[in-house]
C-alpha cells in the first residue's frame, strides 16, 4: 500500500508540473499584449514601457514561469494586473458563489434523476418509462443557457418570484439561496437527464446479471430484487458520473454565470481572458487543475482501499 501510494504521489506531482508548464505556455502565446489592452489606443510608447516594467512583462519567459511557480509553491497566487487585488482574494470571493451553485445543482439533479431512473427501470417499456425517457431526451437536447432564459422569462419577468440575476450575498443565506435557485435549476436539469439515463441503463444491466436471477429464483419479485440487490451495485457507475458532473459544474457554469450575471469563478476567468489578465487566468486554471488532480488521487486511494487487486497490480 505504501509503495502504491508513493507511485500515485509521484505521478500526481508530475501531472501538476506538466499542467503548470502547459497552462503557462498556452496562455502566454495567446496574441494580445496585456499592457496595450489596459492603456488603450491613445497610449504613448513611454507609458506602455513604464506599465510593462511595472507588470514584469519585460522579464524573459523562463524567469516569469519560475517566479509564478515559486509563488504558487509558497501559496502566493500573485496579484491581478487589472483588479490590482491578490488573486487569492478574488478566488476566495468567487468560490462562495461557484461552489454552492455546483452543490445546489448537483443536489437537484440527483434528487430528480434517482427516482426517475429507478421508476423507468422498474417499469421498463411501460408508459412511465416511455414518458421519462422522452423527457430525458429533451433534457439532454436543450442547451442550458436557453433553458435559463426561459426560466428568467417566466419566473423573473412575468411572475416576479425571483430576480433576473445577480447574487444577494451570504449575509442573508435565504436571499443568497434564492438568487442561486434559477441558475441551479438551469444547470441541474440537463445533468439530471443524463444521470437518469445512466441510472436506468445501469439498473437494467444489473437486472440481467446472474445474481439477480438467483435472487428471483429464491422467490423475490422483480421489484424486490431491484431494490435489495440491483440498486446498490448499479450505483457505482452513477457515482462516477456524479463525480464527473461536479467538476463540470464547478468550472463549467461559465455561460450560466453570464446569463444570470453571477460573480462566480467562470465569470472571473472569462473576464480575465478578455482583459488578458494572464496571472489570474493562469493561477485560477492551475487551482482548478490542482483540485481535480487531488480529487482523482483521493479516488485512486479509495479504489485501492476497497479493491486489493488494484494494489497488487500496481
Amino acid at each position, binding site marked *: 500500500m505504501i509503495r502504491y501510494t508513493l507511485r500515485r504521489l509521484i505521478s500526481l506531482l508530475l501531472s501538476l508540473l506538466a499542467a503548470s508548464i502547459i497552462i503557462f505556455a498556452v496562455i502566454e502565446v495567446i496574441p494580445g499584449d496585456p499592457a496595450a489592452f489596459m492603456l488603450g489606443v491613445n497610449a504613448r510608447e513611454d507609458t506602455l514601457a513604464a506599465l510593462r516594467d511595472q507588470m514584469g512583462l519585460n522579464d524573459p519567459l523562463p524567469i516569469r514561469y519560475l517566479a509564478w511557480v515559486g509563488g504558487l509553491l509558497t501559496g502566493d497566487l500573485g496579484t491581478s494586473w487589472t*483588479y*490590482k487585488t491578490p488573486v487569492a482574494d478574488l478566488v476566495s470571493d468567487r468560490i462562495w458563489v461557484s461552489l454552492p451553485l455546483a452543490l445546489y445543482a448537483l443536489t437537484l439533479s440527483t434528487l430528480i434523476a434517482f427516482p426517475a431512473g429507478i421508476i423507468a427501470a422498474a417499469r421498463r417499456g411501460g408508459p412511465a418509462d416511455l414518458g421519462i425517457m422522452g423527457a430525458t431526451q429533451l433534457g439532454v437536447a436543450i442547451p442550458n443557457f436557453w433553458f435559463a432564459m426561459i426560466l428568467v422569462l417566466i419566473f423573473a419577468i412575468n411572475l416576479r418570484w425571483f430576480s433576473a440575476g445577480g447574487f444577494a450575498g451570504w449575509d442573508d443565506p435565504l436571499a443568497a439561496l434564492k438568487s442561486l435557485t434559477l441558475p441551479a435549476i438551469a444547470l441541474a436539469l440537463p445533468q439530471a437527464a443524463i444521470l437518469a439515463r445512466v441510472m436506468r441503463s445501469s439498473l437494467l444491466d444489473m437486472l440481467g446479471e446472474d445474481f439477480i436471477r438467483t435472487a428471483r429464483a429464491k422467490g423475490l419479485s422483480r421489484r424486490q430484487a431491484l431494490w435489495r440487490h440491483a440498486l446498490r451495485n448499479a450505483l457505482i457507475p452513477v457515482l462516477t458520473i456524479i463525480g464527473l458532473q461536479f467538476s463540470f459544474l464547478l468550472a463549467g457554469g461559465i455561460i450560466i454565470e453570464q446569463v444570470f*450575471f453571477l460573480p462566480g469563478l467562470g465569470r472571473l476567468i472569462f473576464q480575465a481572458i*478578455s482583459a488578458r489578465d494572464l496571472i489570474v487566468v493562469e493561477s485560477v486554471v492551475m487551482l482548478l487543475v490542482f483540485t481535480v488532480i487531488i480529487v482523482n488521487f483521493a479516488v485512486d486511494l479509495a479504489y485501492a482501499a476497497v479493491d486489493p487487486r488494484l494494489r497488487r497490480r500496481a
Partner: protein
Amino acid sequence: MYMITRLTATAGLALLGTTALAQTDITVAIQLEPPNLDPTSGAAQAIDSVLYSNVFEGLTRFMADGSVVPGLAQSWEISGDGLTYTFTLRPGVTFHDGTVMDAADVKFSLDRARAEDSTNAQKGLFADIAEVTVIDPQTVKVRLAQQNGAFLFNMAWGDAVIVAPESIETIATNPIGTGAFAFADWVQGDRLELTRNDAYWGTPPALEAATFRFIADPTAAFAAVMAEDVDVFVGYPAPENLPQFEADPRFQVLVGNTEGETILSTNNKMPPFDNPLVREALAHAIDRQAIIDGAMFGYGTPIGTHFAPHNPDYVDLLDTSPHDPDRARALLAEAGFAEGFTTTLKLPPPSYARRGGEIIAAQLREVGIQTEITNVEWAQWIEEVFTNKDFGLTIVSHTEPMDIGIYANPDYYFQYDNPDFQALMDRLNATTDPAARSDLMAQAQTIIAQDYVNGFLFQLAVPTVANAKINGLWTDQPTAAVDLTGVSWSE
C-alpha cells in the same frame, strides 16, 4: 374628540408618506465592469462611467451637452501669450477622507500624470505642460511649453481628475475623490456602491445611494430591465429591444449621441489601399443607411468625415461619398482592379463591428472586393491591428472626444501621411481664437473626407433605458460618464 385628533394625525402621516418620500437610491447597470477604480491610469471607459463627476472631479468638467465648465477651479486667467493658466480653486473643498483639496493636490495630480513613469492612458493631454507651480493654497499656475487651444477641454477628461497623494496608493480599490458621491463598496464581479458625500462643496445630490451592476450579456440585460432589477441601463446592448421599452409606460428610452465616430478603418500604406482611387471606390461602395438599419436597428447618424455631427463645427461632407456602386466599379477599373481584389476585414467584439462587418462585406462584394472576415477580441485587435498594422480593413468606433488629431500622426494604425494636414493641425493647436479654430477644423474635416482616408460610417448612438420616474439622466455621452449628481426620482 380624542378619536378625531388621532384620525387626523394618521391621515396627515399617510399624506406625507405619499408626497414627500421619493425614492433616494438607484441601481444603474452598465455593460462592463471597471477593471480597477483609478481613472488616471488605464484606458477602460467603465472606470469613468462609474466615477466621473460622481466621485472624481477635475479642474474643469464636461456637462451633459459636452460643454466645458469650471470644476474644482472656479475661475482662471490666461496670459496674453496663451502660455500661462492661473487657476483659482474653489474654497472649502475636501476629499472624502476629510483632507483638504488645495493647490498642492493639483500640482501632484498633474505632475503625476505627466511623469516619466506615468501610466496615464491619455498622457498626451498633459504633454504641453512645462511646469506647475503652487502660488498659494487656492491658486495654481500652469505654464505650457507651447500654445494649446484645447487645454481647458483636456483638463475636463476623466484622466485629468484631481487626486490626493494621501490616498493614491490604494486608489485602484478605494478611490478617494472630491465628488458628490463617495465610494462605499465594490463586490468584484457583482456590484459597486456609492453613498452621498454630505460634505460636498456643490449642490447636494438628491440621491443618497447608488449601486452599479455589470451586465454584459444582451439577454441578461433585457431580463434585468424587464424585471425591474435595475432602474437604469446606460449603454443598453440590444437595440432591437428598444421599441418594446418605448411602448411600455414603465420605462423611458433616451437615445443619445456619443463621441464615437464609427469608421471602416483602412490601412493607407497597404496595397491596394495606398492608391487613392481604391479608397474612393471603397467610399462609394458603402451604403451607410443600410449599415445603420441592419447593424444598429436604425440608431446612428451618418457621417462623411471624422467629426461628431452634434459638434457646432461639424461640416456635412456626406456628398463627397454617396453610395454609388457603379462609380465604385469604374474607379476600381481606373485603378487597375477591374477584376476586384481580396483583402482582410478584422472585426472587434462590439455589435457595430460584427453585425456591420457582415453587411459591409456584402456591399463590397457588389463592387468586386472580396473580404476575408476575422473576428478578434480587443486585446488581439490592439496587438494585430493597432500596434502591428497587420490588416487591410477593420471597423472601429473612435470614442475619444475631438480626436481628429489622430490623422496628423503618420504612425497611427491607419497610416495616413499628409504633410498639409499635419501642418494644419499644428496651426490648430497654436490657435486659441474660437472663430479661427472653427475655420481650421472645417478645413481639416474636408481634407480627410476628400482624401477618403477611411470609410466614414456613422456616429455611434448610446441608448439608455430607465424607469419612467427618473429625471436628470444624461442623454448624450460627451465623455464616458453616468453622472448621478443631478438625478432624482419624481413622485
